[in-house]
């Protein structure tokens, strides 16, 4: 079992998990209206650190984002329960935009190496002296839960014993303008699941959970029981009308309704998200479990959200309480679910954390307090043993997966399964040439940015060469990609659109691609893959780290094959994709 050793939240309403929980329980929030902040033309509601709070966590030589993450990690590991310097301890950073505010500085814009998420992760890791290489989880709004799921699996697959999982994001004109272009921001306090909800609020925070292999079954120890990531295979920014991915992620957990104190939903208070979640929860049959959301206290803290909301939920269960959905008054969703705007008591010892995000990704996590002897025995007695594949791992030194079919796409050409493909163009034009020659019937291709085109066309060629019947829906294939430069091209495009107050035209069609995981969503949509989609950023290409993550990904027992690889775009003419299909080694 994977245990929670310690945790911390730093937010505008507190510097420790307990301060945060007490504030939330009392109904407090730092959400307020900002007029003219950062010279943005439109006002917005957000939960931001005050200047004084910011000064308190800033560290010399580190950026605002890095300082915030460091401050939270420092508090989470203060009790020395985990050996940071051990080769068995890894840092996992969850962020959607990391140091993106640096791009506003022309020095970084022109030489963005120092802005990249992998560099930020390295800087944080070095501050503490981690000896292992950090991984950045960049899966849009589900990053926090996806990071916890990754950490759990890396420990489960025996590759590490401890993981420090930190989620953080700071708000910037870059992000606020992007969400404004989407018309996704509420003009006042957000109202999750309410009939009058009209959008989300953004928030700043960092949250850290330290996970460890279960060493001692202490009472009241929290455990990550199960976690799953699933895709809607529907649309890159619009949630599925059937709640497909969230529904499937919920089902993958195997949690009994009677075990649950509550389901802590994503509940961003956008029209479509909350409706989608209500349908997914309804479909999963959790009609009698209270569904709550914490965005009314914190706004959407992006990369921190999954971890922050998991911590608040653990504190609530420890306090035998279900926290009210701040901002909720009248049910405004069609799913048959149970909502509340007052704090309620509970005697249950576990909860589900649910998230969904752009790219059609959804994540669910089942977190439980160390069960009493009886609970454990009862759960075991009711366990279903479906197949003997459960524990059967391979012999030592044999890879847990087999690689089949490989493609490498560079600006100069394509190698597919060891053979050079005949092409004439180079650079960006090569991608269009490939599309016309081999696909041709998927005009969405032209809406994609360069990196997405690269990943899309590489996956098309790869899957064609697999020679299997395509496009029939499936949940056993995951799409898991890695890179170094995140969504740098789209980031720069969006930055250029907001640099000049007189030419301020942020565009939703550009902004959506500032999330690198969109590419995994595009592949899932094209192929009707309801399985896991994940995107990770590394400091540099690292074959062994990638293989660790892929091996861990097979800990999701539904996953039998993965479309995986490296898809990196430095500029429109400097890119590199190496993709392959890996199958679970039976």
């Amino acid at each position, binding site marked *: 079992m994977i245990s929670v050793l310690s945790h911390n939240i730093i937010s505008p309403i507190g510097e420790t998990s307990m301060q945060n929980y007490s504030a939330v329980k009392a109904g407090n929030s730092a959400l307020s209206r900002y007029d003219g902040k950062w010279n943005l033309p439109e006002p917005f509601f957000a939960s931001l650190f005050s200047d004084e709070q910011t000064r308190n966590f800033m560290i010399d030589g580190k950026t605002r984002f890095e300082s915030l993450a460091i401050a939270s990690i420092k508090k989470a590991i203060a009790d020395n329960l985990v050996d940071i310097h051990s080769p068995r301890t890894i840092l996992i950073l969850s962020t959607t935009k990391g140091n993106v505010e640096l791009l506003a500085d022309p020095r970084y814009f022109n030489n963005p190496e120092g802005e990249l998420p992998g560099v930020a992760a390295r800087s944080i890791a070095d501050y503490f002296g981690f000896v292992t290489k950090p991984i950045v989880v960049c899966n849009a709004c589900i990053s926090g839960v996806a990071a916890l799921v990754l950490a759990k699996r890396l420990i489960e697959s025996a590759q590490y014993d401890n993981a420090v999982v930190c989620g953080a994001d700071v708000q910037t004109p870059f992000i606020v303008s992007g969400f404004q272009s989407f018309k996704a921001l509420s003009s006042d306090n957000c109202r999750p699941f309410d009939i009058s909800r009209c959008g989300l609020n953004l928030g700043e925070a960092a949250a850290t959970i330290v996970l460890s292999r279960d060493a001692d079954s202490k009472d009241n120890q929290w455990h990550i029981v199960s976690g799953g990531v699933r895709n809607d295979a529907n649309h890159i920014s619009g949630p599925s009308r059937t709640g497909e991915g969230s529904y499937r992620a919920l089902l993958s957990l195997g949690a009994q309704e009677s075990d649950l104190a509550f389901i802590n939903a994503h509940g961003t208070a956008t029209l479509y998200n909350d409706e989608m979640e209500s349908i997914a929860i309804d479909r999963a049959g959790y009609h009698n479990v209270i569904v709550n959301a914490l965005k009314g206290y914190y706004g959407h803290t992006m990369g921190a959200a999954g971890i922050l909301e998991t911590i608040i939920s653990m504190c609530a269960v420890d306090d035998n309480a279900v926290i009210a959905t701040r901002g909720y008054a009248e049910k405004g969703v069609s799913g048959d679910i149970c909502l509340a705007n007052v704090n309620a008591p509970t005697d249950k010892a576990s909860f589900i954390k649910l998230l969904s995000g752009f790219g059609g990704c959804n994540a669910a996590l089942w977190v439980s307090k160390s069960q*009493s002897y009886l609970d454990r025995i*009862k759960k*075991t007695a009711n*366990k279903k043993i479906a197949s003997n594949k459960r524990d059967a*791992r391979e012999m030592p030194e044999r890879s847990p997966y087999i690689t089949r079919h490989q493609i490498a796409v560079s600006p100069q050409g394509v190698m597919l399964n060891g053979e050079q493909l005949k092409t004439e163009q180079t650079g960006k034009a090569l991608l269009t040439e490939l599309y016309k020659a081999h696909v041709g019937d998927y005009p969405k291709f032209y809406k994609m940015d360069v990196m997405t085109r690269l990943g899309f066309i590489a996956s098309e060629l790869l899957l064609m060469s697999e020679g299997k019947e395509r496009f029939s829906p499936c949940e056993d294939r995951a799409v898991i990609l890695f890179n170094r430069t995140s969504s740098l091209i789209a980031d720069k495009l969006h930055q250029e659109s907001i640099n000049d107050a007189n030419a301020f035209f942020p565009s939703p069609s550009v902004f959506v691609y500032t999330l690198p995981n969109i590419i995994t969503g595009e592949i899932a949509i094209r192929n009707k893959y309801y399985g896991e989609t994940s995107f990770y950023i590394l400091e540099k290409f690292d074959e062994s780290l990638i293989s660790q993550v892929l091996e861990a990904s097979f800990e999701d027992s539904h996953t039998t094959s993965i479309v995986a690889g490296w898809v990196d775009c430095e500029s429109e003419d400097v890119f590199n994709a190496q993709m392959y299909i890996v199958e679970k080694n039976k």
Partner: protein
Amino acid sequence: MSQSIVITGSGIVSAIGLDKESVYQSLLSRQSGIALPAILKTNHKDIPVGEVKMSNEEMKSLLNIDDLYVNRTTLLGMMAVDQAIAEARLAGISKKSCRVVLVSGTTVGGMDVTESYFSSMLTSEDHMKCMLTHDCGNSTRLLAERYNFIQDYTTVSTACSSAANAIMLAANLIKSGQADIAIAGGTEALSKFHLNGFNSLMILNKENCRPFDDTRAGLNLGEGAGFVVLESKETAIKRGADIQAYLAGYGNACDAYHQTASSPDGEGAYQAMSQALSMSGLKTGDIDYINAHGTGTPNNDESESAAIFRLFGDDVPAISSTKSFTGHTTSASGGIEAVICLLALQHSFLPANLGWSNQMTNGVTPTLGEENRELNHVMCNSFGFGGNDSSFILSKHETSYIPTTFADGEIKVVSRVEIESVAELSRIKEYLKPMEIRRMGPLMRSTLLSSLEALKQAGIERPDAIVTGTMLGCIDNSEKLLREMVATDEATTSPTLFMQSTHNTIGSAIAIQLGCHGYNTTYTQAEYSLDWCMRDAELLLRSGTAKTVLVGCHDENTEWYGWVQRAIGREVMPNIHSVAMVLTLAADK
């Protein structure tokens, strides 16, 4: 992948030596380790025992342990496992490439520490922290945590056959691909608790024991630990580990006769030995030596002889009981005797059966020891209270063993019965006669009621196997026995209380009630006890060893123990809880 299971390391601590070499020398020189108690603080100064000649303090400093309350069972285990790990060169093995499991057999667990503070704990919380490691599962946990490469661990508690059953589970985990390497065996410290218990059963010899002798008059208790490192032949070759021997076959059967006595015809022993032989692909004539259970009680030696004659006819292999050297090391005996068998194979000698001079009627004739005797296949017997009988065969060479296949498919729960209150226990009268119920404590009643009801619901008269879990076992009887020991200053204790104090007493009670001779074992690993039962049941079903398995997990609590649990910050267990299930493997889709 072949399923050849090999032994690549072993370790031993016993009354006749603190490592393999010194044990070997003692065996050769016929030097028994049995003497009057020098370390165990008991009033029974006249009862000889096989003590490990080292105090807890000496072991603690040797092992670099400074925990005040660490129990002797754990320390002995560490001494032996350290050796086994060094021999198999496991230190530094990567968790990523190898899943290493520890399966340890023990029944005493932390009882030695518990009994030393018991009278103080009746009225004060001063030393209650010692109860954190009272239960058997915790001894194994402490043992496992000493080695950072151990991923999983469990405790088998079938009294005197615990270590043998631990070795069997370990082999099955490897064969089914759930583990790559397993450290298996047993560890047991002497305690006043079981010394008084065996004394109340009047089976302790006041002199050195004389197994298989016509004048034998009981056993001597001993202590120690013996562990072996098991892995598949492939893993061993890949790692470049030295193969010491092959685990050619093993069998587990239940005598289902009586809690403390063996049947006259040795049915359980016979079945266990036959199974081991048939798995190994060997004939009776291939066995060169039997390390007998041979406790030296009139009943065991007679019953074991009968079973051996049934299986081997007139052509009985050389046989001896090395309990005449070590004493009966109860849960550790299967591990200690496995290591003695390894020594015999390696050094080509027959260990002596000390104390024998008079041929018993209808009894085997043991060897008095022989050097320069080439041995290829040796059989090792371990029989426990409740008729938990096991036997395994170690071979110098790979035999044409019968491989085990593990079928796919869903494990079906045919029936499930749960008991959660003492009030429900009165329904036991629907199943059992008053004379059968009279001696049973709440846990035994709850176990039988839930099990018999689950079988009835499943429409099954007798399951093929019984796998039982318990976290604390019969703590009601254990506490009563401890109170009697304090009250009478070890003068008299009730044999019934002792008989129903071991963890496996509940699983074997079901077998006795049903006349079920099939596979029978007991796991105790805190809240994971049922998990391990389910895992073993799954192995039995998938391997075809059993078509139906009765699985259960049963626990009780007492007022005093509830107070202890509160005082040490542990969850207060329910007064009674039982869950019993009948499992089968669903037919292939």
